């Protein structure tokens, strides 16, 4: 059973990365062909910058990718069947989220170059406070389930999905997804106004590893959103994993679309917006969810 679930996880990540790469290119209007784009990076070499931190440079994409995989492992592929069937599933996912900030920071820190460094610090300033609404949203989903386990949260949605019961949850979580995958309005790490930010000194295989890790995180965050808001593997006729895949793909498309159609503001302004608008909104969300759960 465990082996089967492990296989499902690997298949989900691999397939998801491909679908994500395809979505990215189609939505960006750049034609399809994620494999071609990947090959174009794979045949190129990468550059060792001036006195870089080699170890951390190598570690950053590894950590990012591993966090995506561990985060995905708490998501149930069928009711009650997650690879890591933990009573504190959302806490495990929450720590994967928080450690992602470190992966991104290391990626920007290690080349010893100005644009990556600024991107790294700027990202930390924005991503730290985003972790708060993320956890409020997940805790709100845990209230009716009376458990922190993702399987229990899925089970609690047999009658009605959380996306209906807690309507503010998914939009807030999409914002978290944009932050974790360095996309569009929340991309303060790899942005165009710094020639690619933390990736500005990177090309070739190293860049490909980073892009794969980013897409893997997109898959994981979407799968968690599918489980928490869209009932995960619950659904008629088709088997559980297929439902989860469909729902995950739908959330991925939503995040990719949001990433290309919402404008990024300046980081100083975004910091204020998160604390004075998004965070109170997540308080409100938790309050409503609490009253409804009673």
């Amino acid at each position: 059973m465990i082996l089967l679930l492990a296989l499902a996880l690997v298949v989900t990540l691999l397939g998801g990365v491909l679908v994500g790469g395809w979505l990215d290119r189609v939505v960006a209007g750049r034609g399809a062909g994620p494999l071609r784009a990947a090959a174009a990076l794979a045949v190129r070499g990468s550059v060792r910058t001036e006195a870089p931190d080699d170890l951390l440079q190598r570690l950053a994409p590894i950590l990012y990718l591993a966090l995506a995989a561990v985060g995905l492992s708490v998501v149930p592929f069928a009711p009650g069947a997650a690879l890591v069937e933990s009573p504190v599933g959302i806490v495990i996912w929450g720590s994967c989220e928080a450690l992602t900030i470190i992966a991104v920071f290391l990626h920007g820190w290690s080349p010893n170059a100005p644009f990556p460094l600024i991107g790294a610090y700027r990202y930390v300033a924005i991503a730290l406070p985003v972790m708060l609404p993320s956890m409020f949203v997940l805790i709100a989903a845990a209230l009716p389930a009376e458990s922190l386990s993702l399987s229990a949260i899925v089970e609690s949605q047999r009658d009605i999905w959380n996306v209906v019961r807690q309507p503010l949850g998914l939009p807030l979580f999409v914002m978290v997804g944009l932050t974790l995958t360095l996309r569009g309005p929340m991309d303060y790490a790899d942005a165009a106004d710094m020639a690619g930010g933390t990736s500005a000194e990177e090309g070739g295989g190293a860049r490909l590893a980073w892009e794969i890790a980013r897409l893997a995180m997109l898959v994981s965050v979407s799968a968690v959103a599918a489980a928490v808001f869209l009932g995960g593997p619950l659904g008629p006729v088709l088997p559980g994993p297929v439902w989860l895949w469909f729902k995950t793909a739908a959330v991925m498309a939503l995040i990719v679309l949001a990433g290309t159609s919402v404008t990024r503001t300046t980081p100083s302004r975004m910091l204020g917006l998160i604390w004075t608008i998004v965070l109170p909104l997540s308080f409100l969300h938790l309050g409503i969810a609490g009253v409804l759960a009673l």
Partner: protein
Amino acid sequence: MAVNWLARLAAAAPAPVFTCIGPGIQAAVERLCLSPALDRVATPRAAAILLVAGEIPDHAQEALDRVHDQVPHPRQTFRWDGTGDPEPALRDLWRDLAAGGDTETDRRPDAPPNDWCGVGPHGQGGKGMMGGTPYGRPMAMTADDPRDGLALDAYTARLGPFVPMLPPGLVLEVTLQGDVIVSAEVRAAPFAQPDDASAPDFCAARMLRLVGLPRDADRVARGARLRAITALRAIPEGLGRHDGQDARGRLAGWLAGERGPEAAPALATLLPGLEWSEAMLVINSFSPATLAHVAISKEDA
């Protein structure tokens, strides 16, 4: 052969091109890069081809060589004078490079920027954390800060003339504290560009690219309408006020098809105190025609 197969797959991808744009050719290059056959990358690290467009003036030649040397091997330079369609040639070049074709050697000497007088286990030199030139470059030193008075390290560098988010030719000497600009001096004005580079569509597209809307930037540059939401409101009100109009107002004007102001801004007084992305927005809220007349700062006495 697995490698051949990978190279063939890669050759079918858009050619990764880093552009170094000379005088009078900016609009042509931007139009060329709308093609799906080319991938205009933001850094030479991600490029295989260095596209040198137009005649690069002598004073920018050394900078061009520096960017050239930063493209990973195998690399090729492609010169384009703005006539004809270079796309087939670029595609052929990329096919060769994807298969690991010939490369170009460095144009700058292979020596560290300064003498490396490092001592100690990491070559840090100096006393404690201060001083020394490890790996041929000094460490940053503390300086006063304009915002909160915390005396942390100041980072001084010259940006350009081929920074993708600045107008080609512009060389800015900036001092940063964190990501806030403490001082900015113009060392070289942008290359002169004919009127087509200052067309409202192209100006708006450059700004949209900065705020994370590359798809909409392409659309607007092709003359279509903007689809993204909050494009104007995302730019803080009052940012980069000049001639009674702020950056947001100038973008709104371009999106409505109006040309921007003609009077050149004083970047050296407009930029200090701004955070990095604010500063980039302000610079890009002026058209190339306006910025061409920007005042050059005198070298410090």
